[in-house]
């Protein structure tokens, strides 16, 4: 087995430091009441707006996934089920609410009760329920930013106006709740920062088009997602991604890949099985298969195709990001198209669809996606099922069996193709 399963550069340490600093701020907010904190969803988040108040985002999803990676998600899930949540409810929600009930936090520090629960509703109906329940249990004001779903190719003027209006209402709401005046300049600067971070992040993602790819655009990209969502709109974020780009670019220039030899290039669809993150990764590492692109790394924002926040139109660009530039609020066919572009432009050998039971937004209809890729496009596609948070739905032997069989077959196809090329 290859000794070096994944890249461990200095950015990984820096990433840890940044995330700990964030948890430190949350801990401070819990103790002192400042800075103000706002619960928000990762998908299509509008962290730029919070900068205008010096407020810190609180992402329940990050808490939930941290818990799962540490193999601590089952207890809170069961606590939530005691309350009446069903076996088939999203396990992210159950883990988060279970933690609230049991007073568990993902670090040693405390988590604050947020100033406002801001539900950025970007397609996922579970978000609405989740935040509604949090608001009920925590007795915190709730505001929903209703983002029109991408049911047309491009958002309409009416869609944008609706979201911009709600962003303005959110500002008023936050002014009342924090007692702070919205700092428009700071907001504009945040949008400016975001656009720079996004440019860097996009360049990193495009590095994966090289062969070998200097990083795994699924497993490693997830590591980089924390800073992207928490620090995107801050100078720290820009610095972090500058360093990350430099480091990965150097690696790419030296033709260093994730594995000694990059045997397979994959596009990954769907969230990872966090409770078995390492086990799952090893199943691909065994075959020296590297993800060169993934849809999950675009839940918070889809930047590799050119979109950037625009400091000249800060509100409109935040609205545009929420409506059209994150995978969560885009429709299934737009996701097919995104994956198709990855397969072509990132030169992938196959697609792995990871069905997660918790998330119907991602998973409902993925069988049709498989049908499209295998039958219409002839792209080798594997479909495996488990969950992103609930360890009870990961069948290790079955999953491994399917992955092994997929690569045994892919190996054959690739070898045949290369022989044909030689002939």
């Amino acid at each position, binding site marked *: 087995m290859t000794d070096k399963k994944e890249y461990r550069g200095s950015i990984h340490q820096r990433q840890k430091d940044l995330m700990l600093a964030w948890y430190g701020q949350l801990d401070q907010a819990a103790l002192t009441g400042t800075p103000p904190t706002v619960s928000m969803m990762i998908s299509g988040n509008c962290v730029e707006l919070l900068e205008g108040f010096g407020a810190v985002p609180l992402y329940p999803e990050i808490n939930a996934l941290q818990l799962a990676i540490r193999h601590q998600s089952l207890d809170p899930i069961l606590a939530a089920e005691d309350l009446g949540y069903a076996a088939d409810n999203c396990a992210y929600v159950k883990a988060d609410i279970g933690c609230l009930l049991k007073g568990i936090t993902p670090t040693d520090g405390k988590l604050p009760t947020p100033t406002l629960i801001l539900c950025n509703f970007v397609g996922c109906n579970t978000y609405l329920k989740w935040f509604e329940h949090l608001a009920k249990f925590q007795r915190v004001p709730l505001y929903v930013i209703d983002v029109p779903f991408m049911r047309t190719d491009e958002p309409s003027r009416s869609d944008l106006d609706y979201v911009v209006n709600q962003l303005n209402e959110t500002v008023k709401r936050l002014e009342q709740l924090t007692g702070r005046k919205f700092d428009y300049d700071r907001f504009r600067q945040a949008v400016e920062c975001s656009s720079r971070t996004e440019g860097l992040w996009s360049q990193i993602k495009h590095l994966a088009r090289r062969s070998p790819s200097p990083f795994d655009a699924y497993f490693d990209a997830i590591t980089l997602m924390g800073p992207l969502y928490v620090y995107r709109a801050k100078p720290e974020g820009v610095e972090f991604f500058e360093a990350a780009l430099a480091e990965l670019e150097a690696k790419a220039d030296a033709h260093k890949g994730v594995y000694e030899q990059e045997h397979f290039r994959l596009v990954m669809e769907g969230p990872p099985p966090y409770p078995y993150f390492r086990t799952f990764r090893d199943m691909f590492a065994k075959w020296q298969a590297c993800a060169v692109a993934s849809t999950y790394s675009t839940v918070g924002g889809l930047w590799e195709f050119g979109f950037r926040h625009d400091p000249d139109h800060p509100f409109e660009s935040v609205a545009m990001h929420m409506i059209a530039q994150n995978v969560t609020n885009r429709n299934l066919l737009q996701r097919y198209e995104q994956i198709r572009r990855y397969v072509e432009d990132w030169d992938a050998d196959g697609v792995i669809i990871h069905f997660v039971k918790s998330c119907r937004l991602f998973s409902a209809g993925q069988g049709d996606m498989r049908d499209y890729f295998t039958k219409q496009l002839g792209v080798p596609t594997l479909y495996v099922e488990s969950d992103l948070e609930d360890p009870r*739905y990961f069948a290790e*032997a079955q999953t491994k069996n399917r992955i092994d069989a997929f690569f045994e077959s892919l190996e054959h196809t690739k070898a045949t193709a290369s022989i044909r090329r030689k002939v």
Partner: protein
Amino acid sequence: MPLLAGIDCGTSFTKAVVLTEENGQPRVLGEGRTRSGVKVDEAANAALEEALRDAGIRRHQLEYVATTGFGRYGVSFRDIQVTEITTAARGANFAIPQTTAILDIGGQCTRAIGISETGKVKTFKSNDKCAAGSGMFIQRAAKYLEVALEDVGELSLRATHPQPISSVCAVLAETEIINHVSAGIAVQDILRGIHESLADRAGALLKRVEMKDQLTLIGGVARQAGIAKALEDRLKVKVDIPKDCDFVCALGAALLGLKRLASKRSTSEAAGRKYGN
């Protein structure tokens, strides 16, 4: 002295109880039991006849027949039918008067019932989606692991590294066991894991019915496989198994019959007084 019967038409066995009341106290006179087969009426008859013989009572002396269980509607000679949840509660309350929570580990599903001090069902919760906690599951696991059901409890106590079963579906849980076996894990560790998972799952159900520090366990397989011990260890509660555990529901049906009979009598007496005869 009222004479009445309760018949529990279960999926594998049909059980009958003949009951009377003496000095305001219900008393069991006889019991009968037979395989259910496909004809509910016949099995109910056979079980009842056996209980009547046991009690030394003639069929025509019976005043009331209450049925319960899966085939409760299939008994043509019944006076009333009541569900097995309601009757389990009444029966358990009679056998163990202080109980407030019942755990019924049946072949297909596990059920927790919260009851009042009079034996009334307050709330109940079934685990029908997850048959991994059911009797049939233990039976199958034992068979697969080549262990006799009676030895399961004993063997599981010898576990050194219990291997938990995490799946919430019986089919996937069986697969998990097979994978544990494939991975070379010791039989006693797997069995202990099954016991503990089962106890945990039961615990979750029992929480929903607000169990306190005691529970009454009913259901045949559970007893055989030594689940009571696992429940006591894991849930830190006292577990009681009623004497004549298999007859709890039949008894509960008979007890409810007794109540109905009494209230019918008092209405007819009242009617009798009203019309002066």
